[in-house]
């Protein structure tokens, strides 16, 4: 990694942080950089102190780091809170607008408001001035930024576009003329421009669902899951999807169960609080053996908790939610690519095993923007595992929805298909689906359902090993921690340590054999989780008999950075 530059934009909600940040991120990607961008925001629509942070590099990055090179401060708070993060960097601020208490040599005043008014006749162009200034400080060409803005304002017409471009130039020129450090922050854009995507975890998950042929999505809005619903809704017409906003989460899951029962590939999106309301229907999905995909995007609890922050605090909840014992599946992506492919895989597992399947993400992964190689849609297959009309017509016996089979999977027909009747019941039932309360039947049906879990377990792939398989220290993580952990492995190995990462995406049913094979080799294991109790490490213990040596836990609502993890490893004297 030759280039590693961190830009932070700080300001209040409503000040256009997201627009500015997105435009810059896209510009950097166009320049050929690898980009990682992450947002920190409060649970409000206007005001408060938010940030949009963009990291650029010439090699692939999947995490934020903590030291800031360039701080674009849209309010005083930004300087107050982030000055200490500044690592020989610069603070760009319009001192005409913002009163700054701190005295710092790093402050570089740009009269953005004045420039905007002078050049474009309206202060709303200040943001574009600031973008130009940033490009100037990095000594990049203006052209990519200009084409990004052209695309962004296409609908607004030529005049607006021109004014934005003028603003960009003015900001750029102001820097060239006035910044004393010259090209101190120059970053040379990579020669080889890869064909990369710039995509958020939520967008990638939405894309995955569309690629999997989702037909019905019912959900109730809840941060940070709403992005997926929005994304699918925005493309619903093209893809023949029906998106329905349910009156509550209870309705959402029950609705998709009805739709799935009747044959539509169906999913819901929610976060922990909404999932709480879905637990009863989770059991319904399982006892009626109705496929369902639940996109569960975590945020810190309990209850409302920290609605816009991040945490991996709902794993045990998802594992054990709802009364009784029944099969379910949990997948947890760590990158946008994994969001895309696992989302598609979730639908196939749901259809094959006729169980509820979770895709567990979190606010960090959901809202962060990553550059990554183009998703390969041709790798996604759609496997419905439904009986064909001819199979049904050929059969001589009356259709048994819950036929007992060696692997527990009963061939599935749809209501009315080829004249058969399909019966689903939340009570314990016989092979047809009718209520049956006898002990013998109960055991058969329970065993049938649980059998599917064991068959599925065999199919679950091994965790990914990043780095030398025989390293002397193994970091263990699941889901969204992949990025920072992989970077930690690189950093430490570069420093001569011997560290690898075992990254789990297939959480439940845990592929126990694979897991034991890989983890029993490790002399020292550190499980790194974004929660306070080490939920995944508990799962490893109880399901796979793996005793983790040490834990690094973070539960202040923020995601991991490589620095945080390395500091914790040092503190615990494992490195």
């Amino acid at each position, binding site marked *: 990694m030759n280039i590693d530059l961190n830009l932070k934009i700080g300001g209040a909600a409503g000040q256009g942080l997201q627009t500015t940040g997105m435009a810059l991120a896209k510009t950097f990607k166009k320049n050929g950089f690898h980009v990682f961008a992450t947002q920190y925001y409060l649970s409000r629509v206007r005001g408060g102190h938010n940030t949009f942070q963009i990291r650029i590099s010439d090699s692939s990055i999947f995490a934020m780091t903590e030291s800031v090179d360039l701080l674009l401060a849209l309010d005083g708070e930004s300087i107050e809170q982030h000055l200490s993060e500044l690592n020989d960097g610069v603070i760009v601020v319009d001192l005409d607008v913002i009163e700054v208490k701190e005295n710092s040599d790093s402050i570089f005043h740009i009269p953005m408001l004045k420039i905007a008014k002078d050049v474009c006749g309206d202060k709303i162009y200040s943001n574009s001035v600031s973008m130009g200034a940033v490009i100037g400080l990095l000594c990049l060409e203006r052209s990519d930024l200009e084409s990004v803005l052209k695309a962004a304002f296409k609908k607004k017409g030529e005049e607006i576009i021109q004014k934005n471009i003028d603003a960009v130039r003015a900001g750029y020129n102001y820097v060239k003329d006035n910044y004393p450090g010259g090209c101190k922050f120059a970053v040379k854009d990579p020669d080889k421009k890869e*064909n*990369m*995507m710039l995509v958020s975890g939520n*967008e990638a998950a939405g*894309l995955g669902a*569309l*690629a*999997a*042929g989702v*037909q*019905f999505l*019912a959900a109730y809005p809840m941060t940070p899951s709403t992005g997926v619903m929005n994304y699918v809704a925005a*493309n*619903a*017409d*093209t*893809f*023949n999807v*029906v998106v329905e906003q*349910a*009156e*509550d989460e*209870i*309705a959402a899951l*029950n*609705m*998709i*169960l*009805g*739709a*799935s*029962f*009747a*044959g*539509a590939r*169906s999913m819901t999106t929610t976060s922990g609080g909404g999932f709480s309301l879905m637990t*009863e*229907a989770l059991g*319904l999905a399982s006892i*009626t053996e109705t496929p369902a995909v639940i996109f569960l995007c975590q945020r810190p609890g309990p209850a409302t908790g920290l609605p816009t922050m991040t945490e991996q605090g709902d794993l045990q909840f998802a594992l054990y939610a709802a009364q009784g014992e029944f099969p379910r599946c949990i997948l947890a992506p760590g990158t946008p690519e994994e969001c895309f492919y696992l989302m598609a895989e979730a639908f196939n597992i749901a259809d094959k095993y006729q169980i509820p399947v979770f895709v567990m993400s979190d606010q960090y992964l959901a809202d962060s923007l990553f550059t990554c190689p*183009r*998703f390969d*849609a041709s790798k*996604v297959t*759609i496997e419905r595992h439904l009986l064909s009309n001819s199979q049904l017509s050929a059969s001589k016996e009356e259709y048994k929805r819950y036929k007992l089979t060696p692997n527990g999977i009963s061939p599935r027909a*749809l*209501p*009315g298909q080829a*004249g*058969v*009747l*399909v*019966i*689903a*019941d*939340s*009570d314990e039932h016989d092979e047809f*689906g*009718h*209520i049956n309360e006898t002990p013998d039947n109960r055991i058969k049906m329970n065993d049938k359902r649980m059998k599917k879990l064991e068959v599925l377990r065999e199919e679950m792939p091994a965790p990914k090993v990043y780095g030398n398989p025989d390293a002397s220290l193994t970091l263990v993580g699941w889901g969204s921690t992949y990025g920072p952990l992989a970077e930690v492995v690189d950093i430490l190995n570069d420093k001569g340590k011997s560290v690898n990462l075992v990254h789990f995406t297939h959480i439940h049913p845990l592929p126990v054999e694979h897991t034991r094979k890989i983890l029993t080799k490790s002399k020292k294991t550190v499980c790194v989780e974004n929660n306070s109790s080490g939920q995944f490490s508990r799962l490893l213990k109880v399901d796979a008999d793996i005793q983790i040596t040490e834990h690094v836990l973070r539960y202040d609502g923020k995601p991991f950075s490589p620095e945080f993890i390395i500091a914790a490893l040092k503190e615990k004297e494992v490195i």
Partner: protein
Amino acid sequence: MVIMDDYGKFETAWCPGCGNFGILKAIKQALVDLDRSPDEVLIASGIGQSSKLPHYLRCNTFNGLHGRSLPPATGAKVANHELTVLAVTGDGDCYGEGGNHFLHTVRRNPDITMIVHDNQIYGLTKGQASPTSEIGMKTKVQTHGVFNMPLNPLSLAISLDCSFVSRGYAGNIPHLTKLIEKAIQHKGLSLVDVLQPCVSFNKLNTFKWYSERVYDIEEPGYELNDRVKAFEKSLEWGDRIPLGIFYVNEKPSFEEHIEVLESGPLYKNIPKTELVNKLIDGFI
């Protein structure tokens, strides 16, 4: 042609003499009269004595959770709008535990026929007050008698501009059959609230009690689409209890609003996965 035998005969878990038998009979008869074959019909239900009904006739069945008959019915209708979808539920199931779905399903107006076995009591759990229980009814929980204002399902539905609002009586099977037929034929959400004596737990609202009070609403000049009048009529409850259709507002159903469904049932669509690449291009 569909005949009664197509719908089969089953042993039930109901008490002898229960009003549920009349409702079952009326539903079967209505489906036969409308020539719907069992495989075209889906009955969704919740949990309660009433909600066991779909097990007692041959048809597709989604016997879900207590209070949750409507959401799966809606989902199934969206997935395959060629199905005739009925939601069979109880007063506790639909107006108690499932009250929120009632509100919003009426607003959505999917083409579903809702049949509420309104026995003014929780039958299956052995006799607690339901939202429609009469003031003064004593139970093991309501030891001083009910004092909460009973919920009037018809007034409530009319206030939500439900597109078909009606009341039947389990003691008048021919009338109920006709009502259910009309409800099924109506495009949109149709409510059939059925007065249903529970011989085991409701000692107040018996066959005798209802029979002495019910009368047919059909009177000259009663206009089906006058919402205020219908509301006024729906308030009548006491010595005289009107039966029949109270209110009809023909309007597009939920499915009719959804353009995607115009080309045929949702579940039959072939996924347009080739378009995913175009979307991916947008991220490059």
